[in-house]
């Protein structure tokens, strides 16, 4: 369980450019959930995940992960970081080793695991993201953009974290690449049973794979609920400048026109099933 209590983060405290990125966030996330974190640029979502990953320290408030308070005296931050895996935006820019294998092994070798353990983890992680075994001996720099990104994600997965945080893992990818990555992440969540936090601007992406969504706005948590509940509040979301999926908009308008559709439809398949039922009656 991840528990945030009154967490705030201020940039450049005391200076003339002081700016609160996150203010008074209280949030409890359960283990095993697939959580979508949404909000526009500057809403504080990046700062929030960096705090959860233990990379930056909250200006005030506490973050507890499985009962351990981050940055407290009896908390080994490096060990905690092995438990939470953070995949940053454009993670392919962090690759540096000669071979894909060595790069994925960077995390596990920092954990000082025995060699055979590292090998097993690298192969497992590569398989999870769908990298063929022969790619492991290639240089990461001769791969395509989508493949590089999968190597970078595997590098985090090889640490076998209990909590996986991905910051816009589909940024810059084309629709096919995006679907592939999202499908792999969904698969990972199912196979490993770990907690996943997926940060994205795209509600369409989140709609299909998450079971809970947290919406950030102006550094605060504006909404936190089941995915299906969040899409019932399409008006509020639009007020925050977040675009709801086109399909949600269509169904809301049809409902307003008197069609008996249920609230909060967010996938094309859901809409198709309901409209079909109504029209074929």
């Amino acid at each position, binding site marked *: 369980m991840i528990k945030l209590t009154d967490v705030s983060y201020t940039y450049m405290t005391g200076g003339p450019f002081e700016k609160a990125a996150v203010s008074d966030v209280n949030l409890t996330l359960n283990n095993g959930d697939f959580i979508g974190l949404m909000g526009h640029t500057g809403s504080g979502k990046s700062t929030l995940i960096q705090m959860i990953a233990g990379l930056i320290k909250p200006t005030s408030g506490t973050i507890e992960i499985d009962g351990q308070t981050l940055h407290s005296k009896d908390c080994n931050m490096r060990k905690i970081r092995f438990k939470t895996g953070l995949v940053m935006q454009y993670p392919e820019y962090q690759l540096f080793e000669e071979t894909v294998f060595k790069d994925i092994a960077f995390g596990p070798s920092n954990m000082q695991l025995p060699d055979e353990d590292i090998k097993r983890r690298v192969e497992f992680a590569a398989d999870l993201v769908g990298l063929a075994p022969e790619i492991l001996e290639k240089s990461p720099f001769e791969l*395509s953009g989508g493949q590089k990104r999968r190597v970078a994600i595997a590098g985090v997965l090889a640490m076998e974290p209990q909590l996986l945080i991905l910051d816009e893992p589909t940024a810059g990818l*084309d*629709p096919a690449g995006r*679907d592939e990555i999202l499908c792999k992440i969904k698969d990972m969540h199912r196979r490993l049973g770990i907690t996943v936090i997926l940060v994205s601007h795209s509600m369409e992406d989140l709609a299909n794979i998450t079971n809970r969504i947290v919406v950030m706005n102006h550094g605060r948590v504006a909404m936190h609920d089941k995915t299906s509940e969040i899409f019932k509040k399409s008006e509020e979301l639009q007020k925050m*400048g977040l675009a709801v999926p086109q399909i949600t908009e269509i169904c809301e*308008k049809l409902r307003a026109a008197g*069609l008996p559709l249920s609230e909060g439809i967010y996938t*094309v398949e859901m809409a*198709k099933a309901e409209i*079909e039922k109504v029209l074929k009656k």
Partner: protein
Amino acid sequence: MDGKTNNIVVDIKNVEFLYEDTEETGGSRVLKDVSLQVRRGEFLAVLGHNGSGKSTLAKHLNAILIPEKGKVMVEGLDTSDESLLFDIRQRVGMVFQNPDNQLVATIVEEDVAFAPENLGVPQKEIRERVDYALDAVNMTEYKDHAPHMLSGGQKQRIAIAGVLAMKPDVLVMDEPTAMLDPAGRREIMETVKKLNREEGMTVVMITHFMEEAAQADRVVVMDHGKILMEGTPREVFSRVDEIKKIGLDVPQATELMYLLKKSGLNFETDILSADECVNVIKDVYNAAKEAL
């Protein structure tokens, strides 16, 4: 020049190109016998997935790449003639994906002035061009700012202004929104549409976002180095099967129509916007209710 050729700004004739770029693609990328004409004043979108050859095609438009076979003519100028290089580049302005990597100067205004300075434009005219270009992208109030303090969308608008200051005939944009957030993407689309409509600027936009292509006058879909489809967005996106097969998206409204049609309901798939879709379904629903 007769009226007909004058209406074609860029003429791409049977272009073939072999692109060895192992770092990006892990193999060679090819253009296979591509022919395309860019018409004056149009907003043309080139849609395709990564590696479809769309960026390679874009780079042929202003002589960054020279075709191995075939010809690219810009306003009657052959891109393979090296002596015409700067005439061609001044006519075809190019904006790239990463806004950070195309801004040169430490002050917005100075950056926009970069191209006219290179062209040796007199000082007074540089001033006019810079003011015009910043106004066209709605960034005048940021003229004294440092680029790194701006948002992604703002930086990209400065990049567009920097190209407009050359007074080009065509604005070619190679995935200008791929690295931006939704707000930035909207800013760029609004700017581009405004330039196209109000300034009559010819725009070629390379993208893999169907939402963006749907706003163009004409869409060209590329796959495996070939032009697969061409037509208005309505024509192109109604072919849902083919688009999905090559790994691209269609608008959700179109997809809904497509799914309903497949399950036996009588709908057409040439629908792009939410409102069109709502109206069509509403009419069918009301008609059915009255019939009861």
